[in-house]
């Protein structure tokens, strides 16, 4: 196996909580949004990052692109140390790593025309030869009419805006595309269009993708490997079939069992693993295994000892003291 395209090691992001004083600030604590994430992404594969709100999946994405500064850890992209790159090196790196955002309304500058939005990357990198034609080709490629060049974002529907966001990211021909909940703001009928488009583009542009979502079914549709996150950590990591049919972490199992299946007969017979309460606050995560207060298997050791993410049963990595294969779908 070749060297991974992206290597993430012990990535940590703590958002300090401040109390404003007159001129200074005093730290009162910190939100441990991402707390030691390890992840390798091979060239050409699509890795899914799933978890509930507040588990740190979007923060992880922004850390990898260094849109926010990490507290500690390392990100190596294509052999280059992203977190220690100087401004100029970072700018060059960013051509190769692009991101598509969740909110199709907030992610496009309302004051710029489609030409300027999609072509922004070309302008930044001075590739202005055949500008209109290149932007037009990109529009074609994401299924939009090239006559839309002079329109403004508010004239488009949510699905079309998301296509614009994808075209903008592809303009600089990145190697890695990070998709942060790209379809969760879209209606179901439009979701499928965008997912299909992404699959097509992945093949055509040889993209490596990190796909972030809270919807397990969407991730299953598009990803080769899946990482399940809980409170800033990856708790289970494996290939798609492994995660979806032979998951070993109780959280993955509970999560999977909670997703309702659109089939009333099957759905009403399914066995469910009920979880008590809401996910705890990342401001003050539980001791030991972070999942233990909600875990149906928790024992004394779980309260005191944090299980490492290592390969256990089922052929994939799992951070649990009592991993067991189970199929809950």
């Amino acid at each position, binding site marked *: 196996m070749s060297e991974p395209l992206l290597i993430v090691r012990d990535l940590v992001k703590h958002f300090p909580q401040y109390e404003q004083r007159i001129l200074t600030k005093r730290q009162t604590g910190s939100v441990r949004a991402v707390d030691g994430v390890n992840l390798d992404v091979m060239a050409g594969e699509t890795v899914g990052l799933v978890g*509930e*709100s507040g588990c740190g999946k979007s923060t992880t994405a922004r850390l990898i692109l260094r849109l926010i500064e990490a507290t500690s850890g390392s990100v190596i992209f294509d052999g280059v140390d992203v977190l220690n790159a100087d401004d100029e090196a970072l700018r060059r790196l960013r051509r190769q790593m692009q991101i598509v955002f969740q909110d199709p309304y907030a992610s496009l500058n309302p004051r710029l025309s489609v030409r300027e939005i999609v072509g922004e990357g070309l302008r930044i990198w001075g590739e202005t030869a055949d500008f209109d034609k290149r932007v037009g080709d990109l529009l074609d490629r994401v299924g939009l009419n090239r006559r839309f060049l002079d329109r403004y974002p508010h004239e488009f*529907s*949510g*699905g*079309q805006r998301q296509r614009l966001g994808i075209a903008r990211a592809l303009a600089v021909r990145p190697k890695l595309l990070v998709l942060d909940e790209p379809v969760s703001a879209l*209606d*179901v*009928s*439009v*979701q*499928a*269009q965008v*997912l*299909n488009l992404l*699959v097509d583009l992945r093949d055509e542009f040889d993209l490596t993708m990190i796909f972030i979502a*809270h*919807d*397990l*079914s*969407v991730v*299953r*549709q598009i990803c080769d490997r899946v990482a399940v996150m809980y409170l800033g950590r990856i708790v289970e990591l494996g290939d*798609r079939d492994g995660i*979806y049919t032979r998951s070993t972490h109780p959280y993955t199992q*509970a*999560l*999977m069992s*909670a*997703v*309702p*299946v*659109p*089939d*009333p*007969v*099957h*759905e*009403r017979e399914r066995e*469910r693993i*009920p*979880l008590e*309460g*809401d*996910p705890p606050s990342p401001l003050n995560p539980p001791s030991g295994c972070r999942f233990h207060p909600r875990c149906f298997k928790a024992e004394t050791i779980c309260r005191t000892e944090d299980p490492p993410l290592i390969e256990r049963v089922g052929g994939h990595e799992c951070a649990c003291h009592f991993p067991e294969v189970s199929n809950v*779908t």
Partner: protein
Amino acid sequence: MSAAQSDGGGAPLLRVDDLRATYDTEGGVVRAVDGVSFELRHGEVLAIVGESGSGKTATSLALLDLLPKHIGKVVGGSAEFDGIDLTKLSAADMRAVRGARIAMIFQDALTALNPVHKVGKQISEMIRAHQRVPRSQAWERAVDLLEMVGIPNPRERASNYVHEFSGGMRQRAMIAMAIALEPEILIADEPTTALDVTVQAQVLDVLLGLRERLGMSIILITHDLGVVARAADRVMVMYGGRKIEEQTTEGLFANPQHPYTKGLLRSMPRLDSVIGDRLTQIPGAPPSLVNPSEACRFAPRCDFARPICDEQYPAQVSIGSGSQVACHAAGDPTWETNT
């Protein structure tokens, strides 16, 4: 599957007939609800499914005269509930119905509960708005209700403000408020959409448990077909402000009739499907409802559209045992074989 499942016979609890509601916007008049008819029976869970802008929320707001003031209004139709027409009630009579006989819960409980009153205070105030109960007694009731929806330490929690609650607890608190007067109908507008799946499951359980216990009927508004499969007895699918299909839940999932419903079911990524390369997709985007033409709203996106679809809106066709579909192609044998 439940004891309270639709009994088939008997007069319906709520009979909505040709309900129409509009929104005035700068772009023009939006026909948000455009001739919707349905019945709700005693003790059943009726799901209204549709995408954003399909009119599912507007329908429920129209029933309780809660459309945004000065913008939205009911312009036609009737909604008969226990011998009274909800659309013709005076403001005072409507107020007596709201909350007490038909209650509603909303998607985002954080913004739907008052930020500056204690949660227990809000519940007891709501009780006292409808019944002459002393303050302390109403407070006790509020505590009991919080316990009933599964909030730990209800007595303590009643003195909290909503921002001190977690997402799941907020939704539970709102449910507690809605069931305080044991309403006959509970309208739940996307009650779980803003919640994480693990919490969503808990809240759905609470809702269904209460249905059993109090024998109320529920109108469940959602865009999530998984939630429908889990919780509903009957489903009505809306598209472009109109009802396009209605069936029992089993019937709808086993044998969807309208091309949109079929497309929706197929375009959904699901946990239990065989993984193929591509999802079946419905092309295009939902229609604008500003001054719509008489054409079938779905025709521009429909793979089976025919000339007639662009000319007139299809009538509602009954397809046996309370099921209905509005499609020119429905029941056409040649079309059936094509799909």
